[in-house]
């Protein structure tokens, strides 16, 4: 079939004669398992995959993740790769597996490894949607066994999903990672208070999703361009002059303003904000006030997307009335108005 058409007799095994860095570049585009498998091709290939700078421990199909045998295999896999890995730095390190408390020693060891290689993009996804989520080994951050603070300096992107970590731990990263541009936190069930604040932050993308006990979130990040907040009670936004894209989902009919008398305090002028997505709109007075506030303060706003939340009791009459009012308001401000 097609097997013979790619190389001619003249360039037989030409691929093996390509320089190491070129071959490592090619291998880093394959899945980790596929890259590792090339070690079996010939002597030339035995160590090449060990130099790839991205380690994505994606276990593949989720339905196969249940059972202690699978867990043992996963732990062995990560340990085995880590012990033979040779690249001095890491562009990406990603763990994605339903790990539990009993695996914290492994997790700590892996984090130590990733930071010792000055990882740029760290992603932990413990894939757990039950109550028993996994705690982030915070002791590790505040009293690192072998790492030093300089090991965090290369971090550009952090993503924690189903990882229990406190606001303190997140703030630790914000303080110690001067290059951090992206922060994603999903389903952190212990997170109650978080401040993403600092005039020297270079953070561009912030996503806080499904943190059910988050009571207070303060954001003041001068370089932020994209913000997604889902399922929260109270948020305060300040000093975000470059914000372009916002998506916010309200969970409770609580106010989004921390000052009852003056709504405009939180919604300081956003001079770059073009799209605002408001999920969970429920026709409440506070929702209307928020829409009005956005229209007033986002001076270059082009589009406002209203996504009414059907989870909550919802009155058709109030919806059509709300739509009419909001459309009139939006028209006045020359803003495109979209209802999902």
């Amino acid at each position, binding site marked *: 079939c097609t097997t013979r058409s790619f190389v001619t007799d003249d360039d037989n095994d030409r691929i093996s004669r390509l320089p190491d860095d070129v071959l490592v*570049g090619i291998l880093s585009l*394959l899945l980790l398992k596929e890259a*590792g*498998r090339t070690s*079996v091709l*010939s002597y030339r290939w035995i160590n090449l995959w060990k130099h790839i700078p991205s380690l994505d421990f994606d*276990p593949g*199909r989720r339905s196969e993740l249940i059972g202690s045998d699978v867990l043992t295999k996963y732990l062995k*896999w990560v340990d085995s790769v880590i012990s033979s890995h040779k690249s001095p730095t890491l562009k990406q390190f990603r763990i994605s597996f339903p790990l539990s408390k009993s695996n914290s020693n492994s997790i700590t060891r892996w984090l130590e490894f990733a930071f010792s290689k000055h990882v740029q993009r760290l992603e932990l996804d413990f894939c757990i949607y039950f109550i028993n989520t996994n705690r982030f080994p915070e002791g590790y951050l505040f009293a690192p066994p072998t790492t030093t603070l300089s090991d965090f300096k290369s971090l550009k992107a952090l993503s924690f999903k189903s990882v229990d970590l406190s606001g303190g731990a997140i703030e630790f990263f914000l303080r110690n990672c001067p290059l951090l541009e992206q922060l994603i936190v999903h389903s952190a069930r212990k997170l109650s208070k978080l401040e993403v604040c600092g005039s020297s932050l270079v953070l561009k993308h912030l996503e806080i999703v499904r943190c059910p006990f988050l009571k207070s979130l303060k954001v003041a990040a001068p370089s932020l361009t994209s913000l997604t907040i889902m399922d929260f009670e109270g948020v305060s936004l300040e000093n975000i002059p470059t914000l372009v894209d916002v998506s916010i989902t309200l969970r409770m009919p609580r106010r989004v303003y921390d000052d009852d008398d003056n709504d405009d305090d939180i919604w300081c002028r956003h001079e770059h904000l073009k799209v605002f997505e408001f999920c969970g709109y429920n026709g409440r007075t506070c929702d209307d006030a928020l829409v009005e506030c956005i229209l007033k303060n986002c001076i270059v706003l082009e589009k406002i997307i209203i996504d009414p939340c059907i989870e909550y009791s919802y009155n058709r009459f109030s919806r059509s009335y709300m739509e009419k009012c909001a459309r009139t308001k939006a028209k006045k401000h020359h803003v495109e108005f979209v209802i999902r």
Partner: protein
Amino acid sequence: MAAETGTPTTLTLKSNDDELFSVAESAAILSVTIRNMVEDGCAGGVIPLDNVDGKTLASVITYMNGISAIPADEEKKKSYRDKFLSDKDFETLADMVLAANYLNMSCLMDAVSAKIAQVMEKKSVGWVRRKFGIENDYTPEEEAAVKEEHKWTFEGVETDDDN
């Protein structure tokens, strides 16, 4: 620079088999190696490229001209790259990746690497050996040992073919 004076500056590149090529500076500086020479003022006469032969350089220049003619639209650039590489055999791709590496042209380097990686994707060890003419120089015992050491690379992975 071309943009400042209004008249396009042309550079002369020389391959390692002494072929000469004229190329607009604005296209040639896609190569960081060439851009550094231009910025250092060493691009006045003929620029010798000792690691690239004439056939490959002609092809790289076609790419340089093609891609720099496309305005900043990543989609269009990608489809140009795909089309440009679609009819190239492996020998040409190998020459191209070496040239891109030497010339420090990350966009071409990434595209050619991706093209080669695509061929290896989801394929068994035996298939990749045959396809690229890779000689298996392990003894059967050694091969078994390497396989055992890399057992995890065979777990939960499906390949499109047998062996």
